[in-house]
């Protein structure tokens, strides 16, 4: 075993056996975005095969002054599946990050839990021979790098380090998160829309204090619940997560609007027969990258920051909303997220109005 155990205590390992579950659970927390699971499964399989199992650690067990390396794949999922990461980005990312942040990394930290971005940090950890912290900064998938619980705790995303597979790299830094996000968006096309990035400088001690624990093991638990279910039965998932089944029906219409570079869309789902005397009900899911608002016949049922997922009833697959097709038969489920997102400052960062939708936040299970 190549892992030395002097510097950390292992909480567990991510092994080949966990691949389907950790990816399956991450798709659920992607809330309709975060990328299709097939490529992330293969990324993780390949990394584990080459480098062996990855130890999961608690940041409190790391040297307190050492840095953690937050890792995200900033790729556009539909482009990433075409041009996925090479093997050398992680070493260059770490070297550049350690230079800029002036420290030494003792572990990798996931930032976002979606299929691609729960896996990219584990793969990076495997490639670097580092452990991965079983924690993260979002507890779900959100499209803005500043939309984290670390931001709520007062940290800034800068400096952001960006590397691509061809050797291009950039360091982005600004006083406000909006400027950093805009710089990142302008850099991405020059990197083929696929890059590995790091953001937030934080020590292991800060990580232990601020980043909610257990994100990756939660993915494994959710994935296991999904796998235990009969095809298309959301019961075990809902039991594991405290979620609710909102609706079951057939996708009748898809509207996409992509003209301003912010893809927005609406999926309209008609309820299954038998109908009551008002006829079929219609559920509408507004999405932009992730699913944001689910409303039924004009009444808002659940909004971001809680998670909203569409599940294919034929296959049991938790869907990427952009891949949904008319005629698909789906369940719509909603799952609660970390309590910190449900405070006013959480809603300001990741409530429906943060996405330009003028509705009040509604939580899963709200009357």
């Amino acid at each position, binding site marked *: 075993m190549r892992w030395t155990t002097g510097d950390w205590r292992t909480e567990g390992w991510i092994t080949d056996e966990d691949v389907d579950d950790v990816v399956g659970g991450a798709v659920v927390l992607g809330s309709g975005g975060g990328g299709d699971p097939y490529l992330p499964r293969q990324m993780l*399989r390949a990394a584990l095969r080459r480098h062996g199992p990855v130890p999961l650690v608690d940041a409190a067990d790391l040297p307190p002054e050492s840095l953690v390396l937050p890792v995200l794949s900033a790729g556009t999922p539909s482009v990433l599946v075409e041009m996925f990461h090479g093997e050398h980005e992680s070493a260059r990312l770490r070297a550049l990050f350690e230079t800029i942040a002036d420290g030494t990394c003792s572990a990798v930290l996931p930032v976002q839990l979606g299929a691609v971005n729960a896996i990219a940090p584990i793969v990076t950890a495997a490639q670097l021979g580092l452990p991965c912290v079983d924690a993260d900064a979002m507890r779900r998938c959100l499209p803005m790098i500043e939309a984290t619980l670390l931001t709520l705790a007062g940290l800034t995303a800068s400096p952001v380090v960006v590397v691509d597979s061809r050797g291009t790299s950039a360091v982005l830094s600004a006083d406000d998160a909006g400027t950093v996000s805009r710089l990142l968006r302008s850099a991405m096309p020059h990197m083929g829309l696929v890059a590995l990035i790091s953001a937030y400088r934080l020590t292991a001690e800060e990580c232990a204090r601020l980043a909610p624990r257990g994100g990756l093991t939660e993915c494994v638990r959710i994935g296991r619940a999904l796998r235990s279910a009969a095809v298309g039965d959301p019961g075990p998932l809902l039991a594991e997560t405290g979620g609710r089944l909102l609706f079951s029906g057939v996708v009748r219409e898809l509207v*996409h*609007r992509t003209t301003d570079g912010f893809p927005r869309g609406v999926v309209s789902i008609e309820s299954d027969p038998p109908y009551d005397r008002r006829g079929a009900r219609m559920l509408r899911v507004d999405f932009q*990258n992730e699913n944001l608002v689910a409303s039924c016949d004009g009444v808002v049922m659940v909004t971001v920051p809680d998670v909203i997922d569409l599940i294919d009833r034929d296959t049991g697959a938790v869907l990427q909303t952009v*891949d949904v*097709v008319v*005629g698909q038969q789906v369940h719509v489920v909603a799952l609660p997220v970390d309590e910190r997102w449900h405070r006013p400052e959480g809603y300001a960062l990741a409530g429906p109005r943060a996405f330009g939708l003028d509705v009040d936040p509604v939580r899963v299970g709200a009357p």
Partner: protein
Amino acid sequence: MSGTRLLRIGIDLGPGAATAVLVGADDRILARCTLPADPAGLTEPRDPPAPPGPSDPPAPTDLAGTTDLTVPAGLVRRLVAGLLPPDPGPVRAVVSCPGPADLLGDPAVLDRVGVLRIGAPATTGVPPLTGWPDDLADAVCGPVAVVGGGYLHDGSEIAPLDTGAIGAFARRCAGRVAAVAVAAVSGHLDPGHEQRAAALLGAVLGPQVPVVTAHPYGGVGLLERENTAVLDAALARRAGALTAAFADELASLAGPDAELFLMDGGGHVLSPDVAAAHPLLLLGAPHATTRAGAARLSGSPTLVVLDTRADGMRIGGLDGGLVPDTGTFREVRGVRLAVRTDRVVHVRPDAAVGRAALLERVRAGILRVGAALGDAPVAVAGTPGAVPVPPEAERPAEAESAAAYGAATAEASATVDRLFRFADGSLAEGVRLARRAARDGAVRAGADPRRVRVGAVREMAMTYVPMPCVRLRVTATGPLVDPSATGEAW
């Protein structure tokens, strides 16, 4: 041969009895021929390969299998001989058969192939064949290389094509593989690097080693195209022998100018060359062909078809003449392919339950398939079997020959599904390019340029894109060029 009209033969090789029809210029059936299910081979399902583990069952297949090519070739000979009049004039035969693609899950029939990916330094984090079951990978995997080249989303090169590395790879393959699969990053946007690599490989390996490129498959990622090309290559020798056997039988009966096509899983035709290089396109062909035939016989391009065969009833739909998109891709033992799934409910004969219970299963299947299609009519195709047909289903004239008729009247098609940037153009320009590419593809596949129909362009959102671009999907379809109607020598 001007002056005589084209005779079209549609051949359905099962599962179940093999049937064929002769169709005249007015789309009417002139003659029929049926051969009973051959107990020795074609229509009897083979013993499935032993599953390597309980979590990895062999791929479900809706196709009958055979390893003996003389069986399907002999059926084609007997059917064509039974239908053709003396001095037939121009003839086209279209064969719907499971082909060798149904053997996918069985490592024993797969050839060893070389795998060349063009895309370094990107993509090396996931080598080719990652995630394949060990027995399948062991059977298929010859030399593997990931070399410099491929394209970014905007069409610029990731790296120059590494021809030196390709030459070295070709020499490693020589004498060790039956075929080679080539897949490049963004090869479906620009096949240039794949085509140059294929030429280099061909120069070293010679014409007897097929080189299968992945770029004809669109709408998915590199891994899916690569997986599909690898399995295509592993079956290419067998598929080539099958199409050559069909062509030989047809030529011996109808002359060397007779046209041969095979059916694909979308209910459209493939040229023998394309079918030989990409046998996975044949997946699901029999049931898709039946649906196309039932749609034309009943005059309803949107419908639910109850395809009754010896092994039960398959319930599937057509939407505007096309197999409805399920939004998911086929997986064979966990290996994802660049071929879409088809929502088909298979109701098998079941002596343990009564007729009423079977009828309930059929009705549930109709509801499930029909949910995507509005109030689509339900049509029966094939010969009534052990699975009961609900009385409300329509039975069009010639329903028992729907599969063969679907082959005889099949059209050519092409689908474009890819990303279009409109940073320096407009969305309308992207739509125009997509429509034109689909139209050109259908014509290349054999459609009459004067009669191509371009379907609705579907716009699909992309997530986390920091620039204006859009994924567009559109299918063009059209009847095949009629060589007897052009007045030109063919």
